């Protein structure tokens, strides 16, 4: 077997990694740590995956642990479930998360219900690229969280930094439940996200949000690429308005960390949810309902949201930019709430 590929040894060499490399390292280290972990997906072997997340894995781990599948999302996700029943810990890659849809049946009807039906826990991971801003058009840009959020039994993870990505990948693989990991394409190689990661073996626990920025005027709950747009907006509000925004990065969408959200809202009295996913049926609705249940008395303003518009993702640059929530939308919404 080949040695370790250079894309997974940067941390060892104390070099900064991108979010994509952090995911590669997380996967690689888990495969080294636990021989029950193996991977399936389209073009993940020789090619190293459409985005090169698994570059060099085939050489190192061999064909039995890095399996190039036919184009069969339903089939290989079902196979992941079967292998997990037999004690293995499969990780499957969707080439684009938009194509998870053929596996919707096996994920929601079979995998998510397995433990409850008495057919045992299913420790498996389904991961892949999501998100817009790359001129990918309607089928290479979607966020898929809400297609699965409604399904009890699943966990959903969506990292926004290299550190979190690696720690969440490792935690997901070690978790005994099925976990979906959404990886934003716009963050994969974003230069501003490069960081030197700890050398030790760490995880980021599932189900814990992160306070990215502290503030007293408004709580922004967000995740994924929108964390960074929210930080940009917070900087504008700080500079121009002297208004301080607290930003929570959910990191795990399901189970949702209400505790951290509620605690922050009790402090600021204002809530803005920002998500890249479309508006109707987006996670903002669930968050607002939980805050209403748990912290209504603390609110000083309506709970609001900034999201993509309720439409498929368009291809043309100007259309897609209009479709997506932008920094100015967050600034406008925050100002509205500040003045409320």
């Amino acid at each position, binding site marked *: 077997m080949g040695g370790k590929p250079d894309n997974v040894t940067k941390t060892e060499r104390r070099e900064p990694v991108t979010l994509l490399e952090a995911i590669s390292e997380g996967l690689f280290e888990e495969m080294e740590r636990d021989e029950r972990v193996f991977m399936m997906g389209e073009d993940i072997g020789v090619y190293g995956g459409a985005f090169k997340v698994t570059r060099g894995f085939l050489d190192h781990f061999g064909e039995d642990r890095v399996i190039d599948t036919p184009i069969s999302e339903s089939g290989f996700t079902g196979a992941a479930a079967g292998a997990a029943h037999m004690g293995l810990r499969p990780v499957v890659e969707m080439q684009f998360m938009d194509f998870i849809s053929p596996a919707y049946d096996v994920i929601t009807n079979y995998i998510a219900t397995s433990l409850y039906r008495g057919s045992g826990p299913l420790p498996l991971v389904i991961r892949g690229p999501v998100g817009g801003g790359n001129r990918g058009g309607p089928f290479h840009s979607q966020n898929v969280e809400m297609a699965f959020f409604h399904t009890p039994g699943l966990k959903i993870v969506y990292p926004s930094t290299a550190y979190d990505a690696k720690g969440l990948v490792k935690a997901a693989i070690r978790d005994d439940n099925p976990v979906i990991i959404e990886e934003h394409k716009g963050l994969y190689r974003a230069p501003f996200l490069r960081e030197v990661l700890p050398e030790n073996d760490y995880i980021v626990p599932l189900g814990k949000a992160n306070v990215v920025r502290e503030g007293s005027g408004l709580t922004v709950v967000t995740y994924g690429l929108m964390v960074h747009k929210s930080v940009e907006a917070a900087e504008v509000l700080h500079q121009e308005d002297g208004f301080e925004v607290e930003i929570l990065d959910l990191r795990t969408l399901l189970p949702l960390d209400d505790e951290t959200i509620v605690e922050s809202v009790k402090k600021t009295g204002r809530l803005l949810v920002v998500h890249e996913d479309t508006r109707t049926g987006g996670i903002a609705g669930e968050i607002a309902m939980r805050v209403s249940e748990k912290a209504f008395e603390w609110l000083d303003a309506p709970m609001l949201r900034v999201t993509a518009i309720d439409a498929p993702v368009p291809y043309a640059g100007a259309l897609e930019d209009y479709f997506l929530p932008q920094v100015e939308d967050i600034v406008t*919404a925050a100002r509205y709430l500040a003045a409320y």
Partner: protein
Amino acid sequence: MPATNPTDGTALVAGLAESQLHELYYALVRARAAEERLEVLHKQGHVGGGVYRSLGQEAGAVGAAYALNRRSDGSGDIIAQTVRACGALFLMGGKPLDFFRQYLARATGPTGGKEANVHWVDYRRGLVGPVSPLGTMVGVMAGITLSFRLKQEPRVGLVFCGDGATSTGAWHEGLNLAAVQRCPMVLMLEANQWAFSTPTRKTTRLESFTRKAAGYGLHAESVDGTDVLDVYEGTKRAVDRARAGQGAGMVEMRYYRRKGHAQHDNQEYVDPAELKVWEERDPITRFGARLLSEGWATQESLAALKARAEDEVRLAAEQAVGEPAPEGVHALDAVYTDRGAKTPWTRLEQPDPTQA
């Protein structure tokens, strides 16, 4: 078919007269020229999304579409194209201008910039815009052709489809449905030996995809996908059967994807010797040589056809480059027949969440 006098308009080969053979040649060189232009436009930064080539597969698209009743009034045959079938798209009446507008995401294009590449629809010309998820179009075409049967219209539908797509559930479900419902549908299987970086041997144990069709009781045959006449004749047989009420079928076009999956793929995983073999079977070179050796064309007439195709394509590309991109606000349009999406409340002149 006996060869007859090359000048009198009667059939020379495959039931085709000289002018028709020239039309085929024209369609082949136009498809290639369009994609070559597209590559240039991409290098110049005009294309935001992926650029897909059908280099070496042009005869498949062209030969297949040539076997259809092509109309522009919605009464003819119909195809669901793929990114590797722009030759068919153009023959059906899809304009190179629209092809460039799509790739360049122009406001003037058939989808106004909402969708990319060959993903566009023109039912009057018999074009069904595909979606990216593989296999999905087989069921859709089963339904289109089922409606032809139910309405007793003598029409046939071709669904183009990559060999990799035959591994999806949707592909099998759609094909089986078309088989049992005896839909006048022909599946044009683009057996180019790759699905992105995955070779056929990793996606099927079968020697030929015709056996997948046979498994559903369909009539299927293989053709040489680098020979435009072989594709034409094979498709014509399948189309004739379908039109005669003998049910769905499949034509497997055997050839090779000579470029990467899209422009971002440098094909490192491909054996250069293999590429060389297929380069020597280039469909345009082959057909040109045949036309010359049989005396069905002259060097001059082929050069003139090529020059005309290149002109058509160049003019179309130039026009598309000069046309406007859509305005962002059109992202809101046509989500439903009776309404669009709502303007984000943060973008109203007076930001107001009650208007969201």
